[in-house]
């Protein structure tokens, strides 16, 4: 039975061997490491609204 960790280890192993990593694999790596990691940061969304007058 496949496990998330097994999958992660396999991807990392192949990555270490120099095999290219695709976006889905990278997404798994990111999610796994975020899950295991001690997060010290948090996501924030910031939007910048340009004052249109500056373009006139």
């Amino acid at each position, binding site marked *: *039975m496949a496990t998330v960790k097994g999958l992660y280890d396999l991807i990392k192993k192949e990555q270490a061997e120099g095999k290219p990593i695709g976006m889905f694999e990278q997404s798994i790596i990111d999610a796994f490491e975020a899950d295991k990691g001690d997060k010290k940061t948090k996501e924030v969304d910031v939007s910048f*609204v340009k004052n*249109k007058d500056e373009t006139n």
Partner: protein
Amino acid sequence: MPAPILGLPLLLQAIATIGVGGAVGYKAQKDLQPVIKALKNSPEDMGNSELKMLRALLLPNQAVAQELKDMTTSKSVGTTGDGTVIGPRIEDIEKQKKDFEIILKPPTRAPEPAKPVIEIFPDQPKIKQDPPVQPEVDLETKESFPDLSEEINKPQIFEQKESKGIMGTNSQEGGKIIKDVTAGVSGQKDTVPSLLEQGALAKPIKDFFNEDDQVVNYKIGDTIGAYGGTVERSLDIEANVKPDFNIDTFGEVIKERAKQFNQDAVFVAESVPADFEGANVGFSLDFGSDLKMKDALNISDQLSETAQLDGFTFKIKNLDTSGSSIYLPQNIIDADLTEKAIKRYGVTDEINKAGFMMPDGQMLNFSRNGNVRDTEHRRVNLTMGGSDVNDFAPMYDFMNKTGAIRLTGNANRLYAELSAKPSNTQLKKIVDEYNNNREKYDSMIISITVPEKGKGSGQFGQPKIEAQEKGIDLRKQDYRLPNEAFYEVHGEKANATDILNKFKSTDVAGKTFTGIRQLNIPNFSNISDAEALKKIRNLQNNMGEFIESTGLKTLDKPKTKFYNTKLYTKGKDY
């Protein structure tokens, strides 16, 4: 999470062995950000059609609506010596800075998230919308349930209140982990459920969430899901819950819904850590541009063929406000064009002379000889200042702008073609014409066309080919959803309420599709790590080719979450 299409044998098999991904509850709030951003940047008056649509979208959440109002009035729009300025005011910028300072300080205790969620199923108190632009006439009704003509004009977007401190599986609330919970359930069997039925399906789930003190917040939305080439209307259920939330108790509620609505399968899923036994991966992907229903269906087919997926659902954000659509809550009527057309052609009470019926029931007289209609419908383009009387596109444009229905009542078949949602008056008048003149008509057909502008001309007397192909001929679609809206009677009496009810089931199709919520890897739990990786690479390769071949833009890389999924099947679990 919009469920993958349950009720399909393949899906039953698939979901039995796979994990299910899903989006977190706060996603809905996040989805609003582009809309809010657009409003911030827009100097347009709130009365224009697009903003009216946005306002309608946001009406379910009065808090959000108030936020938008504030931004478009006091915050975003200011008056300076140079005139009206669209942008943040100095005091607002200062306030934002202070807010950021607070946010950036190390948290001492996460705030208690807000629990209430706004959704607009029929059991909710009605929220006033802008009145329709056309007069409403009561239809004869046989229904035992209340008329929902007001509800069908509401967009089906369900949002939740902002809930700070909740960030998927890693979110903490007072130091405790907050989990995402999703469920997939549909009420659809042979027919597409109406909004009323969607509400009935959702009500006990909503009650359960409200009563369970482990539920931090939730949303129950009206969406569609896809598996293979089939699309079903389903519920989009997401909740953020505290650690002691009992997924099995929730599963009982979902099973009960499945039983009552005679569904073949339903599932519930909760986000889990990567090391959870049986945890699986679920991907989600955002499109770089919004898709319409038809495009989403094409993608659904291609994905199923090429990516070897066991099911996926679309993220739905918005109403399709471009072009014409039978699914739009209400077209904005161009009163000037209507007046021009009436002035040019005059009106008639005889349908056999009429070319179009306006929303208020007035019919344009397309008879020059005074006996029957002898003027081509396409000549209505002359009213709009055009000279091309061969192309059908201007005619559809006229219909879109005025809400006119194209009539052919000069034969033994009464034919009405709609390019937008009809008014009750129009429906009643057409049905009355047919019912009261049964000796004249063998049959009556109400058809729906969604034309594409700017394509070539059709043959004389026939719709142009491109328009036909682009149109939603509800009888010819292999996709089940719109088939419910087509109406045709041969000999028997027509019923305006039946037609209206059929329109009710179509409103979900007026949305736009912004991404794919879950891409499930087949048989994940029954294969080795190497086989799982191979399947993921296969998906990756096929998705890459698919994205390239379709020109579909995507935003960022896919997002992965880990889920514990419980599938319940009819006969075995309920």
